[in-house]
């Protein structure tokens, strides 16, 4: 095989392509070809892996032609994002920016404008890489994933989805069709912070999402969730740090301690010292920022 000096080939390997027009049809193709098939949505990760010959699936099932899968819906149950909603449409959606600001920020951080016009949040989730920016916000928002197969559907919490680097609970015959996100509780604020490699695509070295809820008096942390990516084989919640904060008065000293605990909960696969240091720094800043972001507080005052 000809290898280029770039370390990858410019052309894609051969595959059989089909473009089903319904979810049912896509699922029956999946159950027929199983691990020999890959779902193609945005393609910005999959086609790169194929050009690098990391994978060479025999069948590609293009789902872009399935109508009605690119929705972003908001109602009293929360937010529903269809499998084909692009990162750009999510990042620029008024309701996402207003009520799920940390998710909009993370989607806007990924890739480049061109990538965001193509890539989907569902694809970001299915890729299940350690450094996918879309994941930490979904972890702290306690999103659920709707997985559909020819046998029916199941809805699983996102923290049960990741099984290891690029490994997930998605079965060979399943399609992720929808991401469901409950509306954040009242008196809560969130944010997403990150540090990146300095490259063309700025892959994330540490990503931190925080969602924090205040008590009615605006003093105690009633609840908090901290989601991290790129600091462990899979995206994680820093549950010990959350536990430390819960029910306690939000002060600088406590926030520092919590950040230290969170850094201790990481298990980076490379550049461990740097990633731990940055986790410490970013969790501290993210906690402060999320606390400041608490909106619609009855008295309308600044909390910190």
């Amino acid at each position, binding site marked *: 095989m000809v290898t280029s000096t*770039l370390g*990858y080939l*410019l*052309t*894609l*390997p*051969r*595959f*059989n*392509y089909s*473009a089903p027009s319904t979810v049912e049809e896509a699922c029956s193709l999946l159950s027929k070809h199983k691990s020999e098939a890959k779902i*193609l949505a945005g*393609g*910005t990760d999959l*086609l*790169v892996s194929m*050009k*690098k010959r990391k994978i060479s699936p025999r069948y*590609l099932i*293009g789902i*872009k*032609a399935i109508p009605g899968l690119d929705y972003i819906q908001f109602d009293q149950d929360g937010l529903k994002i269809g499998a084909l909603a692009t990162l*750009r449409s999510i990042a620029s959606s008024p309701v996402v920016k207003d009520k799920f600001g940390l998710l909009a920020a993370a989607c806007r951080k990924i*890739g*480049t*404008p*061109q*990538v965001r*016009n*193509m890539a989907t949040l569902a694809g970001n989730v299915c890729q299940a890489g350690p450094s996918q920016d879309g994941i930490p916000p979904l972890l702290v928002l306690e999103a659920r994933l709707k997985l559909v197969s020819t046998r029916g559907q199941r809805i699983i919490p996102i923290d049960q989805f990741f099984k290891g680097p690029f490994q997930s609970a998605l079965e060979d015959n399943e399609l992720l069709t929808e991401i469901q996100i409950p509306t954040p509780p009242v008196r809560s604020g969130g944010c997403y912070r990150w540090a990146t490699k300095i*490259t*063309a*695509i700025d892959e994330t070295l540490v990503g931190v999402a925080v969602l924090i809820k205040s008590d009615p008096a605006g003093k105690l942390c009633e609840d908090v969730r901290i989601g991290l990516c790129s600091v462990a084989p899979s995206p994680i919640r820093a549950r010990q740090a959350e536990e430390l904060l819960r029910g306690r008065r939000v002060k600088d000293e406590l926030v520092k301690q919590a950040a230290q605990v969170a850094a201790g909960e990481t298990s980076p696969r490379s550049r461990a010292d740097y990633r731990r240091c940055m986790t410490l720094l970013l969790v501290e800043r993210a906690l402060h920022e999320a606390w400041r972001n608490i909106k619609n507080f009855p008295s309308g005052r600044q909390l910190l």
Partner: protein
Amino acid sequence: MKQLIKLTVNGESYEMAIEPRMTLLDVLRDILGLTGTKSGCSIGNCGSCTVLLDGKPVLSCLLLAVEAQGKDILTIEGLAQNGQLHPLQQAFIDHGAIQCGFCTPGMLLSAKALLDENPSPSEDEVKEAISGNLCRCTGYTNIVKAILEVAQGQKEAE
């Protein structure tokens, strides 16, 4: 197995039989001979293969040609109208915003998409819009100036 596809590029309709593994970039350059769209890294980092798909900048190196059917594809060859350069093209020349020229087609299309959507962008919005187009000559300053001048000109013309 080859598939028969139909593409609309710069307003013209083309039919061809291609292998599904051909990207839109492969088809534009190697079948249609539209070599204005450049092949740089081919893995979505550099933005030199940028084309507009229904008005939005996308990477033609990571888009299967079969999936570009039914869309309006605009390449750099379709930017000038009736032999008249697009105002952005003229501004790039006037500002010396072209050095080696390799990033220019993608840069111009990203700029066009921005101005079509947001006729009076801030400098930061311009920088954001071209953040997916790498200029290895590092001539960003003049590129940003050229785009801002066109935006300003459009505003004054109104």
